[in-house]
């Protein structure tokens, strides 16, 4: 097998590739800025230089020339080579800073050079704490700078587009942002203007950087030159917790990180999953943090008389709903599941009402043809349409459902978390004379019309699974505490510095950020007067699903975690009449 020697250590490689990527995969350290595994390789930052050489081959004998000690004679390239663009070659010898003082010097000098005009404003820079320039300078940089002159000044706090702010002085001109718009989002909106020390990225004259994926450039910018207009100055990165999640704003289910502080989600960034979203996510998905934080249903709400809802106790909510169930025939119950709610909640909803004799379950997918782009935005506006389908909910339309609601047949409407009244094709009607119960995360026109609103956890507060448009089941992890969860006790939740060292009496802690809500499955467990459900966690609900429903066979939280989601064979198991509505893979 071909071999390569890095700092006197022998490695074998199977696939052709570049030295830098090989080293990163092997867990070796080498500083770099402009390289990104998903983008073309311009080798312009010069930070990844190594000393590289090849053994001298005796062509006649076909063997390597050896010196007196019997070691291969190595002929080095006359200059240091950029490892990011250097092809792995059989027999190649690489020296990094670990074994060559010249490389070490070059790395420090290059950083000194890059920092010549850099403002060094880390204390007020959003990127500080997660800044490759800052990190690499600490690790590989010079102690100081020999530059004594005035730094070049360039535009600061410049609005490149509606969501991205540029600080041109911080830019190191790695061109990652430009290459992203050229190669990934293909909007071609950015370029590097001018040259030399006057360089910085910019759009064409009179144009805005309004690419629907623009915020990915903020993620890949190796310095604080590109920052998010929305997140700017909101929090230092080391104050936040980082928890893996799933984008719930469309059907693609991009893998994300939710960044929280004091149980508010402050930003959402993509998490690498090569099966789904690579390193990217659409800008729209990042705004979901607002619905996790704001306008939440907190404690059950009930309409007593008139149209005003008041908060009520969980006990009262449960007793009221039990009363309603007692006086209503199963055939008079209209049960509507939700493509917004996870698999576990839809399953619990269905199981509960099935036990009550309800035989038909509906849901309304929210697919808007033309709104997808074949990349990471799908026509499907909801995260779990396929999940609800697989649980045998009947697909229906707003029109059909609303006429059912208006008719006299149903006395009790139960609607899992779905703001149907907000849908563009929902006819303007109210739930008529039936008793309308809604499980919901946020206040919406739908909850306003309900007689009873049960607050449920959102994707930032529960561990739960969603099946994306391609049939991949993926799960979230709780990022935000509710009134009933606790980071210190739930070992799956992440603990930031402030959680570790703070107390609930610190003045930055706001109890209001912990919403009074529970997962829907837990509510159904409590609702069942005969206590027939024995789940203690969503994990147990999913285990039951995978035991009982063949299509979910073998699915577990452990497998979803290790495989970054499990592909389900939806096409095989989906009834024929529903197959056609499943979106094709882009």
């Amino acid at each position, binding site marked *: 097998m071909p071999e390569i020697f890095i700092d006197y250590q022998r490695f074998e490689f199977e696939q052709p590739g570049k030295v830098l990527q090989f080293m990163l995969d092997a867990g070796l350290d080498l500083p770099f800025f402009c390289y990104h595994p998903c983008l073309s390789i311009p080798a312009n930052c010069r930070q990844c230089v190594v000393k590289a050489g090849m053994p001298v081959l005796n062509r006649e004998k076909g063997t390597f020339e050896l010196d007196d000690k019997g070691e291969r004679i190595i002929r080095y390239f006359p200059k240091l080579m950029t490892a990011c663009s250097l092809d792995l070659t059989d027999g190649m010898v690489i020296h990094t800073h670990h074994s060559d003082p010249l490389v070490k010097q070059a790395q420090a000098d290059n950083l000194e050079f890059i920092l010549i005009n850099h403002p060094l404003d880390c204390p007020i820079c959003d990127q500080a704490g997660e800044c490759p320039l800052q990190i690499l300078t600490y690790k590989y940089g010079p102690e100081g700078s020999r530059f004594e002159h005035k730094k070049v000044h360039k535009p600061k706090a410049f609005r490149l587009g509606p969501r991205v702010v540029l600080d041109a002085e911080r830019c190191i001109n790695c061109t990652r942002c430009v290459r992203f*718009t*050229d190669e990934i989002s293909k909007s*071609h*909106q*950015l*370029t*590097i*203007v*001018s*040259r*030399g020390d006057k360089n910085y990225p*910019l*759009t*064409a*004259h*009179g*144009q805005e950087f309004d690419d629907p994926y623009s915020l990915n450039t903020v993620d890949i910018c190796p310095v604080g030159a590109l920052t998010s207009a929305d997140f700017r100055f909101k929090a230092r990165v080391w104050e936040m917790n980082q928890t893996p999640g799933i984008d719930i704003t469309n059907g693609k289910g991009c893998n994300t990180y939710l960044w929280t502080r004091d149980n508010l989600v402050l930003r959402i960034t993509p998490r690498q999953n090569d099966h789904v979203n690579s390193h990217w996510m659409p800008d729209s998905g990042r705004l979901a943090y607002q619905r996790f934080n704001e306008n939440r249903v907190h404690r059950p709400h009930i309409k007593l008389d008139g149209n005003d809802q008041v908060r009520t106790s969980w006990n009262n909510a449960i007793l009221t709903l039990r009363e309603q169930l007692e006086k209503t025939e199963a055939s008079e119950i209209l049960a509507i599941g939700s493509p917004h709610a996870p698999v576990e909640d839809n399953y619990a909803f269905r199981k509960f009402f099935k036990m009550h004799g309800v035989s038909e379950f509906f849901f309304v997918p929210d697919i808007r043809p033309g709104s997808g782009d074949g990349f990471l935005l799908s026509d499907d506006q909801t995260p779990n349409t396929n999940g609800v389908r697989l649980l045998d909910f009947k697909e229906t339309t707003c029109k059909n459902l609303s006429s059912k609601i208006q008719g006299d047949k149903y006395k009790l409407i139960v609607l899992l978390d779905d703001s149907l009244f907000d849908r563009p094709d929902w006819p303007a009607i109210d739930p008529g004379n039936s008793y309308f119960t809604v499980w919901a995360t946020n206040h919406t026109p739908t909850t306003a019309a309900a007689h009873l609103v049960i607050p449920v956890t959102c994707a930032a507060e529960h561990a739960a699974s969603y099946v994306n448009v391609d049939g991949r089941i993926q799960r979230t992890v709780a990022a935000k505490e509710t009134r009933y969860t606790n980071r210190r006790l739930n070992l799956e939740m992440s603990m930031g510095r402030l959680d570790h060292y703070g107390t609930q009496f610190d003045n930055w802690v706001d109890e209001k950020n912990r919403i009074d809500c529970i997962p829907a499955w837990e509510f159904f467990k409590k609702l069942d007067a005969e206590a027939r459900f024995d789940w203690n966690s969503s994990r147990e609900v999913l285990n039951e699903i995978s035991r009982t429903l063949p299509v979910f066979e073998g699915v577990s939280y452990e497998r979803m975690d290790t495989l970054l989601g499990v592909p389900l064979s939806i096409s095989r198991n989906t009834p024929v009449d529903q197959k056609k509505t499943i979106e094709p893979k882009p």
Partner: protein
Amino acid sequence: MAESFSFDGKDLEVIRKILSRYPHKEAAILPVLWYAQDKFGHTSPDVQHLVARTLDVPEAHIHGVVSFYTQFYEKPMGRHVLDVCTCLSCQVCGGYDMLSYIEDKLGIRAGETTPDGQFSLQSVECLGACGYAPMLQVTNKQYVNHLTPEKIDRLIDDLKAGIEPSFESMPPKQHEKDNRLS
């Protein structure tokens, strides 16, 4: 964007010829920009927009190319453009002195145009004539080498009188001699 500039049939024919010389259209950007600047006198944002549309390349990219070269004018310039080199070799041989001499003489700063529209002044990077430092270039054409205040006085007087300096060291612009275009 207001479209005040356009290429006519003859222009498009030239551009088609330029395109046919290269394997991909990005390579044609420079000659087409030269052509546009010769025609319109500058490569302002509107002209960049026109070139981008004509070649079907991203407008941002054109902006990057135009702003890279001081030889492309992003705004209308005076009749004569004096590009004074202030890069390393010229700098140590007095490039900045020459620049400020011209600034004082014309009463404008680098980057500005005289009110009568006769002269524009730019401070530019190395023009590859370090051996003749300090030097300047007149409107992307003649190099004027070994600058002294006297030489500058003479140059400006000549230009005012409509006398072009003779070439001291450089051939004329490459594309003007390019017979494949005509």
